[in-house]
């Protein structure tokens, strides 16, 4: 049995529910025919483009809403029967493909109805773009419907949630409100709408509005696929790892390590408090003046004037990241030290335990980076975001390992002091472009120098010119990893 006959059966199942057919046709017709005009007027009042652009977007909104509703009810109604099909031997991938195809067909029906109504009401200037945009709306909302279908069992609650997401997306989207508000850029159909109504965003970077729209479609399809796969999962005989093997011990150690970290309330408070204090407060008190930075462009060191309020947030983020990562490394190793020794005595291999601890530190360092950059992004725009994020991660990993190393040397209280002091002196003072146009010579020997230079390069220049500094940073990372391994082996060592 291939996927197509299964999808056909699912469609017949849907067609035999009269409410479905009614909804698929009636809602888009009413929405496009009746609501698009008033919504266009409202959009104009709220600072959006208004006029035909909004009326065009209504086709996408209608298709999206119906796609989500159709997918939601598919997920809720057929879950148990779908599992039974898989138990009977149907490949899960085929079932998922059939479910997604069914949802797509239903969404296409709604989109077609909406587009025909739009054509009859106002006409469509660029049919190709509008049809493609409407289809993208439908695909993104299929995933939203599937996701809500998994999370919310009660159909009333499910519908309310679908409606809530849709209202947020539409009414705070670029067709009705302003396209420039940073916080609304994360809405699922922000870029699709902008591309569909031909309103260039000016903030899509190299990818462009269409690129971002397609990225959303691809990601949504992947999420939809994963979600449906998860709902039809059945208990298969598990592949058992040999007791005591690496595949047995490392996941168990990681689970325990992440649980421990997740239950550390202080860590969560710090993840919020440190970026707010280091970044937002610093920016709030920045004087309105310019300063000069030494940056590298095409192999030459150049002095560049920058406006302090524009860059201060970007230069404070690494201090928050380094401090948080150092604390994460410190607490991860210190909290577990005596327990780890006992675990090794019980038979946990030290090398595997080291893998576990370093993985936990890495994940926490990434979390610290994400938390700090999320706050920083509200007050700062890097010239090269990808590189800026990469340099921030390098700083986080470097200082996470510094935390691992200072814990056993300085203990808990001393370690906490050092965990704030060291990143502050290195990243916050010596590497800071706010205090020196370029770091003093002796500060080149500090771990923050390499990633710090890459970060400044990414923050204020359009191209990457700090290969040497990047290699230096990676060298520090390798050396600190080796040192952490030696330290860990010594502290967890037994005489066996």
């Amino acid at each position: 049995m291939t996927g197509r006959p299964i999808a056909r059966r699912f469609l017949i199942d849907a067609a035999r529910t009269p409410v479905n057919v009614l909804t698929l046709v009636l809602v888009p017709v009413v929405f496009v025919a009746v609501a698009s005009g008033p919504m266009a007027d409202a959009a104009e009042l709220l600072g959006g483009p208004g006029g035909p652009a909004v009326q065009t977007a209504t086709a996408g909104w209608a298709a999206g809403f119906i796609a989500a509703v159709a997918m939601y009810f598919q997920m809720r109604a057929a879950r148990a029967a779908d599992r039974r099909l898989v138990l009977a031997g149907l490949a899960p991938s085929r079932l998922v493909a059939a479910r997604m195809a069914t949802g797509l067909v239903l969404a296409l029906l709604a989109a077609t109805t909406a587009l025909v109504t739009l054509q009859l009401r106002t006409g469509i200037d660029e049919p190709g773009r509008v049809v493609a945009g409407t289809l993208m709306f439908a695909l993104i909302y299929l995933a939203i419907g599937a996701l809500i279908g998994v999370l919310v069992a009660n159909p009333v609650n499910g519908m309310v949630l679908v409606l809530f997401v849709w209202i947020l997306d539409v009414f705070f989207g670029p067709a009705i409100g302003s396209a420039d508000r940073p916080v609304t850029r994360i809405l699922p159909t922000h870029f699709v709408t902008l591309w569909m109504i031909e309103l260039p965003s000016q903030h899509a970077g190299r990818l462009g509005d269409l690129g971002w729209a397609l990225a959303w479609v691809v990601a949504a399809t992947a999420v939809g696929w994963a979600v449906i796969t998860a709902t039809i999962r059945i208990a298969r005989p598990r592949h058992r790892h040999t007791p005591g093997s690496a595949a047995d011990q490392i996941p168990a150690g990681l689970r325990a390590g992440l649980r421990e970290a997740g239950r550390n309330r202080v860590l969560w408070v710090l993840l919020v408090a440190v970026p707010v204090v280091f970044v937002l407060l610093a920016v709030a008190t920045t004087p309105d003046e310019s300063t000069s930075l030494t940056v590298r462009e095409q192999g030459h060191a150049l002095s560049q004037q920058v406006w302090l309020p524009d860059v201060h947030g970007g230069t404070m983020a690494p201090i928050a990241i380094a401090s948080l990562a150092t604390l994460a490394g410190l607490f991860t190793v210190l909290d577990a030290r005596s327990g780890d020794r006992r675990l090794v005595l019980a038979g946990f291999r030290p090398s595997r335990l080291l893998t576990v601890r370093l993985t936990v530190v890495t994940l926490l360092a990434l979390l610290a980076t994400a938390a700090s950059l999320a706050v920083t992004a509200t007050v700062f725009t890097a010239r090269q975001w990808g590189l800026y994020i990469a340099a921030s991660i390098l700083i986080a990993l470097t200082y996470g390992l510094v935390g691992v190393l200072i814990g056993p040397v300085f203990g808990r209280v001393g370690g906490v002091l050092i965990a704030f002091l060291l990143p502050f002196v290195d990243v916050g003072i010596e590497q800071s472009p706010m205090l020196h146009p370029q770091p003093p010579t002796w500060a080149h020997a500090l771990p923050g120098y390499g990633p710090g230079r890459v970060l400044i390069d990414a923050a204020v220049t359009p191209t990457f010119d700090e290969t040497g500094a990047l290699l230096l940073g990676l060298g520090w990372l390798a050396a600190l990893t080796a040192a952490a391994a030696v330290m860990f082996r010594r502290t967890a060592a037994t005489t066996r």
Partner: protein
Amino acid sequence: MTQADGRPEDGPDTDRAVLTAAGIEKAYQRGLWPARRRVPVLRGADLTLTRGEVVGLVGENGSGKSTLMKILVGALASDAGTVTRSGRLGYCPQEPILYERLTCDEHFELFGRAYGLSREAEARARREIYAALGFERYATTRTDRLSGGTLAKLNLGLALLADPEVLLLDEPYAGFDFDTYLKFWDLVAERRQAGRTVLIISHFVTDQERFDRIVELRDGQAVER
């Protein structure tokens, strides 16, 4: 104590040894240079444990009981001497050494992987330990929220989990109520019956009849009492 019920009469039967420590020496460094000095704790201690015996290790405060046990376990290196052993070893340290934000269940899961137990074997052993020591209702409680007595039960439970051939218990019943204390001895008797060896450290021995032998650490050496 008689041979008939499996207990050695005059010291261990070395042919049935499961753990042998010979000539163990250990000294700690005290003070700062140049006033640094060496304080010997163990001066050639010998100890042999044979299959199926329950041995008490007693001595004054600071006599080196915990040091000797750490050396037997492998947690501490001796300055001289050798330790040989066969079979799996379970160790219950004097102070509960645990992860403070993990629950009892999560500890058993983690240590089960460390011992190399299958999931089924670990789950079975966990149930038996909960039942035997009576703390199942704390299975999902984090260890930083447990009472001292329950922590001591978990501490002991982790040593018992893999049903090791040799159990080294450092004052395991400190913190137990009397009922749990009796349950503990039932567990020890069961293990002994199954041929397991148990070495128990204690400041003083109140129930002498529960031990097959009692070894005292005196002047850094182990002597039969």
